[in-house]
């Protein structure tokens, strides 16, 4: 019988920009079991909601994470609006959809670069991040921020986007899409990329569903679940189909994200010409009295915002269930039986955001 060894992975590791720790139980070169631990940077943001005014808290919600910051702010506002029965202006709904898709694209492109970096393909890393700069420029032009958009607001959006700017964005996106094609072709066709990703970290369809996987991890295992189909913001008026791959390996999860970037280009082609004229916010009076669970699709998967208020300016409870947190049990399953050398790549394919999980 082979000797068992426990190898600590993290909290500091080259593929982990944020701290998470895994104890890897190894037999020869194979992982038998992985035991995670968290809490190195737990910030207690949910507790902070008990002190802050519910409208001010939008700024905190946007800072749960630096990559999916906009959707955090938007989801929080959506939950509050549902409790208060607010129907926000149409223009705000369409602009929220635009920013949510720009968010998804820049998050996926960042991740694709990081994945290239993780298996030693530095050129892919630089190419994806160079193209992603064009998206960040659009985000900066429309919202004023490159990382934290600062555009979410209970009752609408904080800042309108001029129509002439909206009219210019399709040409900018077309340029970015053209620049992206050859890079994703390399990703799809390169022998070394396939060797590092195909058949690695397989998660079956049943395990993905039973273990509560979300987002590209779930869809990469063949389960067609995408919360955008529920039609929040303006998603009920654009065509969205869940992007699904069936192999359940690292390659499938990467392909889901690549295809979702192109899907976002298509969604933006539907959104940008159809943004209606009109106000972008509404007057909000009173305070939330009731509870609601809002579900949205972040780049990393389904996210849940729970708010409960009792008619005061401060909430009784605010909770976020982030996609990374939901993807931890599936990750442990993927790691079972893998080679030690594949652990960093497998961990990266859930697109771990510890900042989100440690809200």
């Amino acid at each position: 019988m082979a000797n068992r060894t426990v190898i600590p992975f993290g909290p500091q590791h080259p593929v982990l920009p944020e701290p998470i720790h895994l104890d890897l139980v190894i037999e020869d070169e194979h992982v038998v079991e992985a035991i995670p631990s968290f809490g190195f940077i737990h910030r207690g943001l949910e507790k902070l909601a008990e002190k802050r005014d519910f409208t001010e808290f939008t700024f905190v919600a946007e800072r749960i994470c630096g990559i999916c910051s906009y959707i955090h702010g938007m989801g929080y506002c959506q939950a509050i609006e549902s409790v208060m029965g607010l129907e926000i202006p149409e223009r705000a709904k369409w602009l929220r959809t635009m920013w949510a898709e720009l968010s998804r694209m820049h998050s996926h492109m960042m991740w694709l670069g990081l994945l290239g970096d993780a298996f030693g393909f530095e050129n892919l890393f630089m190419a994806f991040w160079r193209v992603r700069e064009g998206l960040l420029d659009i985000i900066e032009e429309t919202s004023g921020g490159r990382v934290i958009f600062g555009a979410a607001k209970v009752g609408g959006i904080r800042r309108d986007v001029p129509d002439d700017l909206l009219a210019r964005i399709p040409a900018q996106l077309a340029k970015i899409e053209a620049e992206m094609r050859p890079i994703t072709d390399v990703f799809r066709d390169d022998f070394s990329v396939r060797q590092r990703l195909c058949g690695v970290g397989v998660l079956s369809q049943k395990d993905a569903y039973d273990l509560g996987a979300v987002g590209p991890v779930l869809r990469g295992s063949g389960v067609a679940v995408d919360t955008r189909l529920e039609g929040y913001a303006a998603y009920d008026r654009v065509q969205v189909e869940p992007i699904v791959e069936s192999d359940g390996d690292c390659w499938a999860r990467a392909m889901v994200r690549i295809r979702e970037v192109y899907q976002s280009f298509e969604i933006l082609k539907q959104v940008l010409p159809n943004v209606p004229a009109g106000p972008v916010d509404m007057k909000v009076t009173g305070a939330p009295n009731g509870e609601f669970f809002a579900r949205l699709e972040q780049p990393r998967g389904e996210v849940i915002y729970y708010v409960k208020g009792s008619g005061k300016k401060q909430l009784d409870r605010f909770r976020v269930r982030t996609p990374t947190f939901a993807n931890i049990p599936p990750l442990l399953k993927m790691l079972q039986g893998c080679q030690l050398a594949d652990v960093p790549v497998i961990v990266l394919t859930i697109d771990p955001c510890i900042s989100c999980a440690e809200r």
Partner: protein
Amino acid sequence: MNAPVQRYVEVQPDALLEAVRAQQLTGSRLVQICCTKLAGFELTYSFARAGAFDHVRVQIPDNTVKVPSISPIYSCSFAYENEIHDLFGLSFLGLNIDYKGTFYKTTIPAPMVGTPVCGAPAPKDKGAHGE
């Protein structure tokens, strides 16, 4: 919006596992478990399947009551239950992976309960030796 209507089912603690098993039999996946500190503790278990988003709710009077773990039914619940243990101080019976309070590394035990929030007046510092 095509979002399903959210349904809440309130159950007693001893009927929790039965209610959760009923969700599993309908093919629902566990979406999340949320704990809210009110007079006691309110636990909300959320489940989703195509066209449905249901919540099973249970009231726990205080943290001396042990809550039955749903990990024998949904094994992924260990993450939520360990989180609730570490942040709220609730204990779960029959947890499949029990971190025994080491899942989150917080300086204060059960920080979501009875702890002043950031910015509230801090108790007077008496120094390291209580002087």
